[in-house]
């Protein structure tokens, strides 16, 4: 009787262990694992959206293919993150010098209601001249954000206004439109500039 109980406990323990291992496998390597591709931006060639740049030109993902590209999301009514990102990028572009002229640098608004073409033109004029500002109908902004796997959300503020939460990373693509890497928000320039150089060199290597 006692032996059977011990065996029973042993079997139960084994069962629990097996179940634990199974659950672990399911969540890490099995069908329950988070999809690593889910968070990764699509290649530019697989994206589909139609926007207008700050000079009134019709633009889309295909506009960017052929040159290395830097893209980030923001809005011009953003007092902290967006001017910081724009001035960081302006500084990186200054470091790159003439090489910066070989890149597309695009700021896509997540707040098209306030960021009209004119508002974008006004705003980007204060930063590095390579930076282009893109806006468009909300549905197209949503499609763009979806392609980049970026997210944004409108949040009301105390004064009756609203602010936007949004992905603050900078996306880097090579000339073919493949993602090279991402630069985190406010990443120091000693890390950011080599990443941009990588996007530029991958372009050169592929071209030769």
């Amino acid at each position, binding site marked *: 009787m006692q032996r059977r109980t011990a065996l029973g406990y042993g079997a139960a323990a084994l069962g629990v262990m097996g179940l634990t291992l199974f659950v672990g496998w399911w969540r890490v390597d099995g069908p329950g694992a988070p999809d690593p591709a889910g968070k990764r931006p699509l290649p530019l060639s697989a994206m589909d959206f139609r926007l207008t740049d700050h000079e009134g030109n019709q633009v889309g993902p295909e506009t960017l293919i052929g040159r290395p590209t830097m893209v980030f999301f923001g809005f011009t*009514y953003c*007092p902290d993150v967006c*001017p910081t990102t*724009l001035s*960081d990028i302006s500084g990186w572009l200054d470091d790159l010098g003439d090489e910066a002229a070989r890149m597309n640098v695009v700021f896509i608004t997540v707040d098209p209601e306030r960021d009209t073409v004119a508002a974008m033109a006004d705003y980007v004029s204060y930063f590095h001249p390579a930076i282009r500002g893109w806006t468009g109908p909300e549905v197209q902004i949503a499609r763009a954000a979806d392609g980049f796997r970026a997210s944004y959300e409108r949040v009301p503020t*105390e004064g009756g206004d609203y602010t936007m939460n*949004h992905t603050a990373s900078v996306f880097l693509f090579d000339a073919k439109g493949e993602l090279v890497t991402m630069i985190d928000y406010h990443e120091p320039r000693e890390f950011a500039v080599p990443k941009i150089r990588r996007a530029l060199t991958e372009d050169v290597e592929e071209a030769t």
Partner: protein
Amino acid sequence: MKKSPYVSGLAALLMIAGLAAPALAGSEDVIVENAWSRASIGVNRPGAAYMTIRNTGDDAVTLTGLTSQLAAMPQIHETKTNADGVSSMTPAGEITIEPGESVALEPGGLHAMLMKLQNPMIEGETFPLTLTFSDGGEVTVEVPILGIAARGPEG
């Protein structure tokens, strides 16, 4: 709060001299350094100001709010960026600074958010910003307005 013309005049003089106005109690040991802000485009967009607030005294001080002629609704906000790279901004509430410690208001973290600007923030100008503390003390700092693409107190 009603101030005599003499006190207001003195405060204004001290502000012009770039000194902190005298505080009432406790918070007189607060020093504000490296204040700066970015120029605005008009008055529709909120501005932001940055600085280091140092408590040189022996007692903890609690920063409860901001006032300024420049903005009808100045508030300390905090930017947070989560693991997915999504940034959000929320009112920071009261901020306690322990003796000998300092709190940095800097891009990407805490900042003085200047909502409902009354005047445009023009590069090269300065504006007074008053920090209010739980002991009733106030510290006024003259904040330089740098270019819209400024990255720090040096521009």
